[in-house]
């Protein structure tokens, strides 16, 4: 069993190593266990997630637990999981040989075992061991897992590993909501609101409509979605519970009703309304439907998003001729501060939940690119290599960004690590866009 003390010792050790690297290379520290080398590659943790013993008891190839964990960790950009094909078959099959894994430069090793408890019922054990000091960092059992929940159990394993190694919370056992456009030939185009796991698996439909849907926002308790629907031939804002039991139009004023974003406390919704003559940002108290106007310029003001503390908003305004990101404090909204200065078009801002970054879409020579800006140093960095990017959305731990882009096949959803190191196109069938990353849900 691992102790809190050993984790602390590990984090402390990593801090010391990290700090010395920062001093040597003269780069800024972002968080204690992170080593970032300016302009170059970033160290990522080498980890061998060995095939789980008893995996063959699970017939469905989509439920390869070790592979799900490897894919999760790789998506974060902070791990470099060893490929299963590169692992020694003898070492995988035999007793755990930590010295071997240390010699092949795998600082961390994951071993696991699946047992069948009943028809479609499994017990899964997972252990994470540091091969350098032989400390066991995680030892956990998932009991009575149905086949359908095996992927969820694997995501929870990834979260436990992520947290033990990086010292930051994981965000793999979370959901993405997005819009899928069903273009079945010979049938009328249909818009489907779907929710899938954070890796794009297990999609389920929440709503189907012949008219466009867009701009999804999760309530912080993950029970409701706000979105824009054109079902009445104009953009209106609807709040719907995930279980489908309640659905309410909250904004259907003259003109545009769009860009709803739930506040961190779940009590209010930011939204863009043009009922006053041109698009401005308002905040609506969800219970009373009372509106307070937050922007007043005659330019386009839209795409409001909450600062992590819920005390300020970032938004897009073209008051200087082109879209740029601005910030306004809630208690003094007329005091507006410009945030983006590089690039002529910076739109659709979103703040990271840890308060450190904003992400937005910047027009570059190569198209529209997901870009991050460090709110402490104010440095901005284009992190995507696709060129029609829209709708960036942070994972709850701030370490990944989901967004959508287009290629010749249609709309795609991808996950970028916030450091830009890892890009993963999610395996979701169909023409999809507008992802919104849901909050952490306390499980079990």
């Amino acid at each position: 069993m691992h102790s809190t003390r050993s984790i602390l010792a590990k984090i402390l050790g990593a801090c010391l190593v990290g700090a010395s690297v920062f001093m040597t290379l003269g780069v800024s520290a972002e968080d204690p266990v992170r080593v970032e080398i300016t302009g170059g590659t970033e160290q990522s943790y080498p980890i061998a997630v060995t095939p789980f013993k008893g995996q063959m008891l699970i017939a469905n190839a989509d439920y390869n637990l070790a592979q799900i964990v490897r894919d999760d960790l790789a998506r974060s950009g902070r791990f470099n999981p060893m490929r299963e094909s590169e692992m020694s078959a003898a070492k995988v099959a035999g007793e755990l040989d930590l010295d071997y894994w240390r010699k092949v430069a795998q600082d961390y090793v994951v071993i696991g075992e699946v047992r069948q408890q009943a028809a479609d019922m499994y017990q899964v054990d997972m252990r994470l061991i540091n091969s350098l000091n032989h400390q066991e960092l995680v030892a956990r059992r998932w009991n009575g897992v149905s086949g359908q929940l095996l992927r969820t159990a694997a995501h929870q394993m990834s979260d436990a590993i992520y947290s033990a190694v990086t010292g930051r919370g994981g965000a793999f056992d979370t959901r993405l909501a997005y819009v899928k456009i069903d273009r079945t030939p010979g049938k009328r185009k249909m818009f489907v609101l779907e929710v899938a796991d954070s890796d794009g698996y297990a999609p389920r439909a929440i709503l189907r409509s012949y008219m466009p849907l867009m701009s999804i926002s999760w309530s912080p308790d993950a029970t409701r979605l706000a979105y824009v629907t054109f079902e009445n031939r104009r953009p209106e804002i609807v709040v719907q519970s995930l279980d489908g039991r309640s659905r309410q139009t909250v904004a259907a004023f003259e003109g545009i009703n769009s860009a709803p974003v739930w506040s961190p406390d779940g009590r209010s919704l930011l939204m863009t309304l043009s009922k006053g003559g041109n698009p401005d940002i308002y905040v609506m108290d969800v219970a009373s439907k009372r509106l307070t106007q937050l922007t007043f310029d005659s330019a386009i003001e839209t795409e409001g998003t909450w600062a992590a503390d819920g005390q300020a908003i970032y938004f897009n305004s073209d008051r200087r001729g082109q879209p740029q990101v601005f910030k306004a404090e809630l208690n003094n909204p007329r005091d507006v501060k410009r945030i983006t200065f590089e690039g002529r078009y910076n739109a659709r801002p979103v703040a990271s939940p840890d308060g450190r970054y904003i992400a937005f879409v910047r027009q570059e020579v190569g198209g529209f690119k997901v870009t991050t800006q460090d709110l402490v140093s104010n440095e901005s960095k284009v992190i995507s290599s696709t060129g029609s990017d829209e709708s960036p959305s942070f994972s709850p731990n701030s370490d990944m960004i989901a967004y959508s882009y287009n290629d010749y096949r249609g709309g795609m959803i991808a996950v970028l690590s916030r450091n830009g190191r890892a890009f993963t196109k999610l395996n979701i069938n169909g023409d999809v866009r507008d992802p919104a990353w849901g909050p952490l849900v306390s499980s079990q």
Partner: protein
Amino acid sequence: MMNHKMTRMLLVSALSVLLAACSDPPVDEGANKPVVLDGTGGINGLETNGGLKGIDLNTLGAMAALEDDKNYAVGGVQPTIYFGYDSFDLDAKGQAVVSHYARYLSTKPMLMASLEGHCDDRGSSEYNMALGERRAKAVREALIVSGIPSSRIRVISFGEEKPDAEGRDESSWAKNRRVELKFPQ
């Protein structure tokens, strides 16, 4: 259990709305009403609707493109005004279309005009929603200048959500940056 019952009730009520819609051609609001599905059930909302998948509206015969207001050309002039990238300025061609339909509207004092603003899909979709409204409002201003009272003009924006051409090239984008002039009942 409760969950499934509720889902079934919702689906049944949605079905009856749809069936009513089908027997009531040619235009019915109901056909555009979305169908709400239960997305949860089980731990963490993980199970997939207890095997229920949403009903396929297409099989119910709700096939016609019911969502559109009437869009017809008068005197051989297409009632669409096109715009440059990220622009809401009317060019001479657009101005000519507006003048033509201002004359038509002045001969039909009971006719309402609906202006639908659209964008190409580059850039952010919410900003494009606002840009689509700006384009529609630019056309409204031109109609007002031509003597059509603002009370007869309705402005809406679809942003980049209803492209006319689906391609990802300049000729498709140019077709999508538009305001469509329609005449609702």
